[in-house]
């Protein structure tokens, strides 16, 4: 018992775990924010340009769709290495949590965009028609009908994206991004520190559970269907 207590009060646990958790939250938060800000318009574009969409643009739709698919099919670890020059360009460095947020965001944008597209596809086309016959512009159809009607789906998409980012961030941590992934690899795995390993996993599980619970609650509250 004493042994466990002393092992739990080591600096690597008290300070290390706190710092790592904060780094993970920073990575996920920053990358999540950027993914939502850029993925949302991309998802709207995918939906609107599709055949039968608000403004069908077959060529644009195919090109954007292809780019999204290619980005999504690359293993994240490869994407991260390939994006090092871009990361340097944006943040000035390729190590640290802020730098890691760059490939995380770029990986999550197409993922989120596809989820947005699916959520928009679920909106009753009759409501879009109703908006069109009252003289709405396409922009008004998007802002007053499509996005508000898809809100529960968009919240769910954000939740899923953030959780995926938590998982990816652990990978990013392994190659210089810091955070819980780095802690787990460098202490838990390489130094056989089971206590650190278990604690890291617990924090990650709690984090994911929390995100899912908050997301579900929010989606339910916003859903009036």
């Amino acid at each position, binding site marked *: 018992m004493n042994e466990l207590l002393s092992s739990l009060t080591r600096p690597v646990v008290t300070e290390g775990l706190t710092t790592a958790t904060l780094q993970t939250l920073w990575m996920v938060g920053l990358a999540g924010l950027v993914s939502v800000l850029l993925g949302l318009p991309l998802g709207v574009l995918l939906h609107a340009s599709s055949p039968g969409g608000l403004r069908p643009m077959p060529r644009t739709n195919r090109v954007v769709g292809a780019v999204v698919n290619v980005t999504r099919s690359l293993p994240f670890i490869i994407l991260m290495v390939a994006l090092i020059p871009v990361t340097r360009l944006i943040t000035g460095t390729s190590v640290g949590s802020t730098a890691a947020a760059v490939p995380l965001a770029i990986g999550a944008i197409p993922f989120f965009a596809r989820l947005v597209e699916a959520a928009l596809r679920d909106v*009753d086309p*009759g*409501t879009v*028609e*109703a*908006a*069109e*016959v*009252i*003289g*709405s*512009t396409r922009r*008004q159809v998007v802002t*007053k*009908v499509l996005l*508000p*009607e898809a*809100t529960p789906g968009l919240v769910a998409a954000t939740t899923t994206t953030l959780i995926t980012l938590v998982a990816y961030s652990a990978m990013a941590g392994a190659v210089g991004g810091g955070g819980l992934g780095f802690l787990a690899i460098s202490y838990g795995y390489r130094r056989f520190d089971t206590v650190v390993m278990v604690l890291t996993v617990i924090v990650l599980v709690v984090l994911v559970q929390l995100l899912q619970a908050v997301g579900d609650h929010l989606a339910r509250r*916003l*859903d*009036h*269907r």
Partner: protein
Amino acid sequence: MIVCRALRKEFQTRQGTVVALDDVDITFARGSVTGVVGPSGSGKSTLVRCLTALERPTSGSVVVDGEDLARLDDRRLREARRRVGMVFQHANLLANRTAADNVALPLEVAGVTRARRRDRSRELLGLVGLTGREDAYPAQLSGGQKQRVGIARALANDPSVLLCDEPTSALDPTTTREVLGVITDVGERLGLTVVVVTHEMSVLREVCDSVVVLTEGRVAEQGRLDQLVRSEGSSLAAELVPLPAATSGTGPWVDVVTVGEEAGATVVSRLSRRLQADIALVAGGAQAIGGTHLSRVRLAPGELDAHAIVLAARELGSRAEVVA
């Protein structure tokens, strides 16, 4: 008022060109309630989409209040659409907006101020009998109430035309009557040109004073309902008086349609006397349509020649035909 002239709409499909509307001339008079009927695939939906300018005609014109929708640019077209209020089969309300906010949507789109929107949506919901339900979400409303909200929304921009596309097809008979009542009521009160697209003859019977029958993209019949049912060569009268399914025997039968209450009530006995034989009555029904009494009886010829009955009925001033 809406005037369609030489309206034609083609669609290109892989199988070639499909003509959905072919040389359609219709006038929907101001203050009238016109039913547009026809089997599915007859062009009803395409006509609706042309009247709201969601679909551009291939040729011909759709003139609403003197303005040809086919010739307007996008911006003017959006403004012109506000003159046509549309009621949908499934109401098509936004699930995440309250009843009042749904009614306010057309006003929002038109750039009306918030305070004005609130007053107007309250007033419109009152007009359709939904005072007190302003803050309810569509999921909390019954089918009939949802359709009332849909009607209020259609009226928000002060349209001159109320276009209803199968407004009661998803409703039960009681709710259907309730919703039709609201449509005729607001139509009358606001002096609207009301167009009701429907496949239900009962809707035609209950609310319409005029009718357009579409068949395969063409206008088969049109005019005032009370005149059409009296005219020879119109199949409308028979369709407006449905017969209960025959319980026994097989055809051929003779269907006799008679205008006028007295004439309709005595037609079988008069026929019987004229032919000096008993005539079996298989089924019958009567309806009052726009002040005109219509009756329809189905007779079994038995020993008699069916064509002799047809001729005799025609001599007595009824319409008659042999049906299998």
